[in-house]
C-alpha cells in the first residue's frame, strides 16, 4: 500500500472515531406535558398506540432512539429528520396552536395518511413495525374526521 493511502485511511478512521465524542442533543423530554395531543383531546387507546408507534418518533419531543442512533454520523442524520418532522408537526406542543391551526394540522395529517405519504417510506424501511395497515389507516382517519367535526362545532 502506498504511504499516501495509509495516511488517508488512518485520518478517516481517526475522524470517524473522533466524531463519536461530539456531544449530541437528545429529543427526549421526561414528562408528557399538558399541551400534548393526548392531553388536548380524549384519544382512545388504539389511536394512542398507533400514533406513538408510527408518528411520535419524529413528530414529538418523545423519540425512542434505536441503538444505532449512538453512532455518528447516523445519529445526526436521524436528528435532522426529527427536527424537520417537528417543524411540520409536533404532537408534544399541539395544545399551543390556535384552533384554526389545529384544524389545518388535523386535515393535513389525514391527507398524509390517506395518500400513504406518512409514515415516510425511508423511515419504514428501517422501522417496518411503524407501517400502518389499511384498517389502521381507517381507524386513524375516522378518528381525525371526528376531531374535525368536533372542532367545526366549537367554532
Amino acid at each position, binding site marked *: *500500500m502506498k504511504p499516501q493511502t495509509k495516511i488517508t*485511511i488512518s485520518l478517516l*478512521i481517526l475522524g*470517524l472515531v473522533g466524531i463519536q*465524542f461530539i456531544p449530541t442533543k*437528545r429529543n427526549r423530554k421526561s414528562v408528557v406535558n399538558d399541551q400534548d395531543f393526548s392531553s388536548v383531546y380524549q384519544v382512545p387507546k388504539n389511536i394512542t398506540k398507533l400514533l406513538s408507534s408510527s408518528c411520535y418518533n419524529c413528530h414529538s419531543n418523545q423519540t425512542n432512539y434505536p441503538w444505532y442512533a*449512538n*453512532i455518528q454520523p447516523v445519529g445526526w442524520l436521524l436528528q435532522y429528520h426529527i427536527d424537520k418532522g417537528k417543524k411540520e408537526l409536533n404532537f408534544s406542543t399541539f395544545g399551543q396552536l*390556535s384552533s384554526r391551526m389545529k384544524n389545518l394540522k388535523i386535515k393535513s395529517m389525514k*391527507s398524509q395518511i390517506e395518500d400513504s405519504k406518512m409514515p415516510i417510506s425511508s423511515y419504514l424501511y428501517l422501522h417496518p413495525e411503524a407501517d400502518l395497515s389499511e384498517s389502521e389507516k381507517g381507524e386513524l382517519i375516522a378518528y381525525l374526521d371526528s376531531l374535525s367535526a368536533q372542532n367545526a362545532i366549537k367554532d
Partner: protein
Amino acid sequence: MKNIIIPILGLILSLSISSCSNTSSSEENNDNHDHTEMADHNSEGNSETLSSTSQLVDNYLKIKNALVSADREAAASAGEKLAKAATDFDLSSFPEIEQQNGKEILEVIKENAEHIAKSEIEHQIEHFESMDNDFIDLLKISDYDKNLYQQYCPMYNDKKGGTWLSDSEEIKNPLFKSKMLSCGSIKQTIAGQ
C-alpha cells in the same frame, strides 16, 4: 481487499467507543417559532413596506389561476409571494379586538402558502382548497374593495366537495388539474367594501 477491511475495523472501533458516550441530554425549545417571527416583524414599525389585504388576495387568485392551467411552477411562485405577504402583513390594520384572530388567520394562510411554494401539484391543490374559508374570515375583519365569489364543486375529494374563491362569476375549476373546468357553482358572494 485491505482497502475494505480497514474502514470496517474503524467502524467496529467507533461502535464500541460510542456506547459510553451520549448520556447528556438537552432540551429543545423551538416552539412558537412563527409567533416570535411575526411579532418581530410587527414591532419593526411601519418603516418597511407592509403588505395589505389586496396583496394577499391577489396572490391567492394567482395560485388559483395557475392551478386552473395546472401550472405547478406558477402556483409555487405565487405561493411564495403569498407566504411573504402574510408574514409582512400590517397587523395594526385589524380592529383592536380582532388582532389575535387576524394573527391566527395569517399564520394559517402562511402555512398553507409555504406548502404550496414547495409541493407537487396534488398537494398544492389540497392546501389551496383549505384556504378559502380563512380568506373569508380575513375579509370579515379587513377591507377589500372588489367582489369575490366562493365557488363549489361537489365532485372534489371523493364527492365530499371542494370550495375556492374567484374574482369572477365565471366558473374555472382549479381543483382538477385543468380537467372538469366547468364543475362548480357560486356558493356565496363576498361583497367588496
